[in-house]
């Protein structure tokens, strides 16, 4: 697998069209999965995917460890999605509920269902939920990334969970 990645990256650096296609085919479903979680619909997800892949192709020369291509692409996609959210007006949420107070058992649901519910949230709520619950960021990290107060992040996470629950159980 990692050998394959190395070969792909080297091919792309030589501007080999086949290698570029192979890299896209290998990475697109994973990247699309990330974008679908952060976008409001499939269209927007594909826009984010395009932006992300342009970054990937243009910065491939900076990738030092080609065997970690998957993780690298994943992070580029998340950064593109975060930037997209950051471009929107920074939001403040009054701390009206504790994040831990809402439990959300996601396991019984299929990924498609969760993503569909996620896409109904507002962009900041969706981003906060994704970063913390899926990507495993801490509240402080998210606050720094999104230029929000940690208390706002906590509140946003709580709201996101509450709204998700209503969407999922409806």
């Amino acid at each position, binding site marked *: 697998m990692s050998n394959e990645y190395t070969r792909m990256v080297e091919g792309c650096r030589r501007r080999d069209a086949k290698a570029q296609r192979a890299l896209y085919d290998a990475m697109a479903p994973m990247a699309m999965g990330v974008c679908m*979680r952060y976008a409001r619909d499939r269209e927007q997800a*594909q826009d984010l995917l*395009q932006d992300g892949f342009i970054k990937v192709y243009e910065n491939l020369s900076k990738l030092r460890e080609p065997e970690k291509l998957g993780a690298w692409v994943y992070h580029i996609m998340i950064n593109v999605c975060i930037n997209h959210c950051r471009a929107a007006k920074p939001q403040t949420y009054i701390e009206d509920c504790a994040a831990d107070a809402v439990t959300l058992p*996601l396991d019984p649901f299929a990924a*498609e269902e969760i*993503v569909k519910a996620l896409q109904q949230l507002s962009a900041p709520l969706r981003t906060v939920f994704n970063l913390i619950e899926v990507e495993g960021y801490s509240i402080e990290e998210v606050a720094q990334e999104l230029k929000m107060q940690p208390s706002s992040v906590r509140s946003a996470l709580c709201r996101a969970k509450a709204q998700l629950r209503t969407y999922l159980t409806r």
Partner: protein
Amino acid sequence: MNLQDYRPQPDEGLYEKIQHRLRVRRLWRMGGIAAGVALVAAVTLLLTLSGKNSEAAGEDLALAKTEKAPAAVLQPQQPAVQADEPVAPAATPAATPQPQKAEPQPAIEPQAPAVAALPLPQVAAPVTEAKEQPLPQAKPEPAKAVTPTKVPEKSEYSEHSEYSDYSEKSESPSATTESAKGVDPSNIPVHIDNLIWAPNVFAPDGDIDDNRRFQMRYSSSVTEFHLYIYNRGGRQVYTSNDPSFSWDGTHNGSRLPQGGYVWIAKFRDTSGRPRQEQGTVTLIR
């Protein structure tokens, strides 16, 4: 979390879109580099021109010119012979100012009198470097040359005559002129096949009617015309198959922001050859 293993397939054709946007972005970068190079060239040209003007004011140009001139005239023999003809009648009066000019130059001093004598008998065969060297000095009109105060002007004249020589030579193959001499340079017809002319800037909100829309002009008819316009992000914002299109700077009814846009025009020229032209246009709000 099962969400991390979520692997939906993106739409077909997305890869082609990405590749297309990458190409357009590369084009933009190349355009930027070309613009930079053009700018640098323009600035250096301006600097050298202004430098020459200021030098012309100073007397040392006479020295600089005489140093340069031999190098310029040395290469071919024909110009030397051509130059001989107009100079020959002038040679006698020119003989008087020449020693004056040669004075500041000790290196040419010994040659100067020899040259003054040489053009008179018109020795054609043994045209040597020694003869060619001082010729540009003898080039300027004798009337001007007699007055010693006009030394820098003389060199200016010689420069002009050189320039006109060059321009005549370079224009004659490309332009259709009956005789290069005596024709107003602004009236020389130049024919370039299938030239697309497109403005590099337009202002949809401007005061000038002609500049409100982006249109193209053609020197001859074009067929199978396709035009595409992209924004900086490589997204297509306008397309048309009509050569007489006119774009008002909007996309799906929304006014596009000020900035640079790339256009690509594909068409067949009068001989049916497929052609592609591209350029950039700046939209001003």
